[in-house]
């Protein structure tokens, strides 16, 4: 699961490391890892708020696009931010599931030359099942929804490279589709920031 967007303002790239954004800034991030690979983009809209878009895939077999907002709550030596996302989960194959999803995330980190990051979140899914019963009486269609829960979490470290770039590495500790056992993952990511505050 994408652990973090690393936007960076022109003069102070770590100002936005932990989500949220100032008006006039934007950032993009790409992550590769096992099992999660993905990309994110974020635009600051002012007063700590940001609009963001995520796409992430687990082993290219589970796909999760999402749109949402981020907000920076605390901005001192430690920074705490939160995000609310709405999207879709699409997972074909033997354990196929597809349906809308919603996710809440919170993350914290300490600013500096090396930025440790911790994030926690919770994602709910409503996998939809379409059933078609064909009988002598005709065709009957129905739509039902199940529920699914994923608990997200991760630990990472980000390092700014100049004014517009940041590199990041970390562990994904998601518990996907509780109670299915999940194996921890790992990732590396790079972020590009731009705009002016």
């Amino acid at each position, binding site marked *: 699961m994408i652990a973090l967007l690393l936007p960076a303002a022109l003069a102070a790239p770590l100002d936005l490391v932990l989500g949220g954004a100032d008006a006039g800034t934007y950032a993009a991030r790409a992550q590769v890892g*096992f*099992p999660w690979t993905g990309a994110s983009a974020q635009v600051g809209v002012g007063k700590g708020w940001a609009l963001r878009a995520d796409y992430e895939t*687990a*082993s290219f*077999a*589970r796909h999760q696009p999402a749109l949402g907002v981020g907000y920076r709550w605390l901005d001192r030596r430690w920074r705490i931010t939160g995000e609310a996302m709405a999207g879709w989960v699409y*997972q074909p*194959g*033997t*354990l196929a599931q597809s349906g809308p999803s919603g996710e809440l995330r919170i993350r914290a980190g300490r600013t500096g030359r090396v930025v440790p990051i911790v994030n926690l979140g919770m994602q709910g899914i409503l996998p939809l099942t379409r059933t078609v019963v064909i009988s002598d009486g005709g065709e009957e269609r129905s739509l039902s929804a199940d529920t699914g829960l994923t608990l997200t979490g991760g630990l990472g470290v980000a390092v700014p490279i100049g004014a517009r770039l940041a590199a990041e590495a970390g562990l994904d500790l*998601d518990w*996907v*589709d509780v109670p*299915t*056992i*999940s*194996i*921890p*993952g*790992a990732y590396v990511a790079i972020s590009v920031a731009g705009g002016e505050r």
Partner: protein
Amino acid sequence: MLLFLLACSEPPEPGVLYDGQRLPVVDMHLHSGDWEGVPSGTQSFIARNFPFPFNLDPETTAKSTLSAEGIVEQLDIAAISHGVVFAVYAPRSVGVASNETISAQVAEAPGRLWGLASLPIESWETGEEAALAQLEAALQEPGMVGIKLAHTHMHQRMDDPDYYSIYALAAAQGAPLYLHTGSSPFPGTQPDPAYTDPRYLEEAIALHPDADFILGHACYDFINEDTLDLDSCVDLARRYPNVYIEISALGSSSSDARAEDYPVVLDRLRSEGLTERVIYGSDGPQRPGFLLAYLERTVSVMEEVGYTDAEARAVLSDNFTALFGLDAVTL
């Protein structure tokens, strides 16, 4: 990542440490076969037992553990000397792993694997003779040492005399019979007691004293997760010298999450004086690392309920080799 490291490391010293002694191990219950031969409902059931993200591509995960190479790799990780893979003909539940598939796998690892043959019973009224001939031919293949049946998976009543010809063939061939007993968690199985409770086998056992019957899973009820039918196993093993009890799967973390039933079963078998009839198996490979995990849990429970070194050795390898007429495994 742990599995990756396990796979990259040198195989451990063979055997398992028990009370300071290293004992050889034979895992008499392993599955193989083709993913394509498994019904879709059972594929889903299997996939749900794989951890994320391996459950996203269960076919690849299954193939990596169902091949002869994959099974031997899992045996190596668990330091188990030999494994026994089962042919299965249960198209309405768990699928098909043909005799040809199993004998080919045994041939790929002749020093490590033995096989149990089986037979299709879907057209028994018209195809009995051909099926028995197929079974007999499979038993002539190198390393094919016994017969596997699963009445609940195959929809075959335990007390149906129509199938007694299988037991007669087993006796004539000197091939022990492994029978799934107790209910099964898989979709498409037949859960009625006549298919799961070995009390219904008594007539067959009594009529075929030269056939050896191994009651798989110690009659564990995998649906309700209880040991009520253990009485049937114990009763039959006490009264018939040709009855053995195998202890796979019931002690796994998914079947016995509270870790309460496995100690009850192993303690009961020991207190009933049946340790010379108990045979170890895991019901793997299931998922990478399962063989090691099940062996560790079994050894831990044996120690907990007081099995001696000799009793542990008997259960883990000697009872199997003696029953199947094989040389005792040494380390």
